[in-house]
């Protein structure tokens, strides 16, 4: 059974690229446009990993991570944040909120897959 990954990003093109890359590599993908949307969609579905942008309206990435970690079914799944170079402090904040790792934008599809393999297998 293939693993399911949720991608959360307010940019449609990024979501599309991430979804495309992951599906190509054999993963199932759910999409959400921001933190609130993500929580809503996750309520019914199970997911094995979350990849989330940080800057989003309604609920940003860090808040989403915190919220996910409070739910037992998402407490231990890998959550990776998408950051930009100039956001070093965000990385720290994300980690203390419970993020597993990060990917720096812009990234190539191979880099995305490498990180997914690293934290999800």
């Amino acid at each position, binding site marked *: 059974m293939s693993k399911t990954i949720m991608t959360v990003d307010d940019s449609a093109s990024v979501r599309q690229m991430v979804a495309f890359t992951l599906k190509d590599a054999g993963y199932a993908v759910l999409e959400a446009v921001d933190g609130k949307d993500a929580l809503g969609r996750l309520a019914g579905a199970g997911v094995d990993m979350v990849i989330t942008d940080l800057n989003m309206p309604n609920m940003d990435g860090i808040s989403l991570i915190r919220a996910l970690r409070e739910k037992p079914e998402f407490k231990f*799944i890998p*959550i990776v944040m998408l950051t930009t170079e*100039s956001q070093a402090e965000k990385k720290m904040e994300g980690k203390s909120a419970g993020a597993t790792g990060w990917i720096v934008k812009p990234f190539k599809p191979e880099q995305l897959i490498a990180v997914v393999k690293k934290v999800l297998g």
Partner: protein
Amino acid sequence: MNDRHREAFREEAQELLGELESSLLELEGKPGDVDLVGRVFRAMHTIKGSGAMFGFDDVAAFTHDVETIYDKVRNGELTIDRRLIDLTLSACDEIRRMINHSGESTAADLDRVAGLVKGFREYLQAGGKPDASPPAVAPSAEADAQSVTLRIRFKPLPGLFNTGTNPMLLLNELRDLGTCTVVAQTEQIPPLESMDPESCYTWWDILLTTEQGVNAVRDVFIFVEDDCELKIEPVDSGTAIEVEDSGYKKLGEILAEKGDLAPQALQEVLGRQRKVGELLVDAGLVTPEKVQSALAEQAHVREVRQKRATAESAASIRVPAEKLDSLVNMVGELVTVQSRLSQLANRINDLALLQLSEEVERLIAGLRDDTMSIRMLPIGTTFSRFQRLVRDLSGELGKQIVLETEGAETELDKTVIEKLSDPLVHLIRNCIDHGIETPEKRRAQGKPEQGVIHLAAEHSGANVFIRIADDGAGLNPGAIREKAVERGLISPDAALSDKELFNLIFAPGFSTARTVTSVSGRGVGMDVVKRAIDALQGTVDITSEPNVGTTITLKLPLTLAIIDGLLVRIDDQHFILPLSSIEECIELTRADVERAHGKRLATIRGEIVPYIRLRDEFRMPGKGPDIEQIVTAKLDGHRVGFVVDEVVGGHQTVIKSLGRAYRNVAEVSGATILGDGRVALILDLPKLVQTAERTEKRSVPTGVV
């Protein structure tokens, strides 16, 4: 970059820009609205990030400053004013243009962009330190592919699982880097009742032998650096080799050997002996797992060192050349004796002996091939010498010449390479001195100022071809002819083809250089070259075209000492034809001969093949059998036949030189001793053809060959 993604981005960017503009216009009226500022910032941020990802680098670079400014506005470090809004709106226009007309920026466009950037920068300077984004960390290229063994202690903090980290995955990543031995340390796991299932109590000692370097190992732990204790130490530098227990035999061994101690008694006592590890654990000094860890390290490193020892000793051995020569000689003698053995076995016709003899033949063929290949070296080392030569010499003569080489990995017998070195140097000097013109002359002819000398080597059949080609002035047949007449090499009215004229430059004392330079032109060079190539049983061929260039092709046999040949018989004389050029043998009946009406031509599968009747060529008495054998060979692209009485079979021969007395008999390249002790002459087929052609020409004016 995937076009669909770019399209998707374009669409999204249009929307974003639209929103951005309306937000900006609103913001102008409500400069303090934090929400609006946030929206503007986020839009810029997204455009920048996505732009970079989908290849719109100009957009990303341009938007960077704008994003920074609005971040500062968000943080209260900057205030919005009319000018900033103007700038930002213009920026939106530019971004729209960059996205829609990617890559088509005109000078005017670039000027505008520069102006905007300047405007934004003023705000940045005013507002405080310019945003210093940390430089992207490029992964350092691991230059060393050297193997290193590391002792890694990975001790996660109990809260590791809270970040969704799976340590098993990290261990698997380490395994992918090389040979890995993992020992889990479980001593800190509390009993079930007091254990918290959400905490990590296990830690790991890992031995890793990898060629990817320490940084690759650190990368594995990049996300968890702060959540664990990580120690990485090299334990084996990568050069140490396991040496067998140095020092003499052990006490027990000596006693047993001397007979003072019965071997079983020794074993029994040793069995009762307790190991250090056990003793330490019992004494409570160390936990069993730590001992296990250390033992694992011992085993791991020992294995790695042993592997390295075998690998290194297998790499290469230096051998004095004389030892090799002596070996080759002996193998040659062995080949001869084996041949006699085969003949004897055939004569006696004993099955067991025949089988044995065949096996010996097979083994010796292998031995011969291996020995021959030991003497083979790539010609590349010789080639590299020439680079320097070309550079220095062309500089001296004020010419611009580049040396290209091809086939440096082509292998030749060691002696051949040594003997080739000087001739090649001379040929190249010739190219540089006489062949390639000065830059001015070349320019005048529409050639590139830089001349090229192309040096190539390749195997073909049992030969090696070495080509020296230049794109210079080419040979001048007229000048050569003049000189040859002057030197009395040819008569003034002799009709010679260009190719024949070219070959004259190999005659001793020949040189067409107007002035004798210090480099060459002394006229001793080319004939020495020819002699050297002849001595190597090779041939030289020249082709040239005026103003286009000259190509000299050397053809050399792969090995001097032993060849595969076809043993043939005429009356009671035996001869060897080198197998490399031979194609087939067919019967030639008296009727076939008569059908050709006196011309020595045979029809083989519709093709007309001229032949040489060796009996006639060698002026041997007698008529020969009614049915003879014609052996066809492909020489220089032409098919020629050689007629003999009988084809006996394949025969490996060691070429023995005939001695000085017979040096001028071109058609015979050597001799060999047959199994029954008789001598067989080894024929040089191309030379035979040449001689036959010349005889034909002289005797039959309209002779067809």
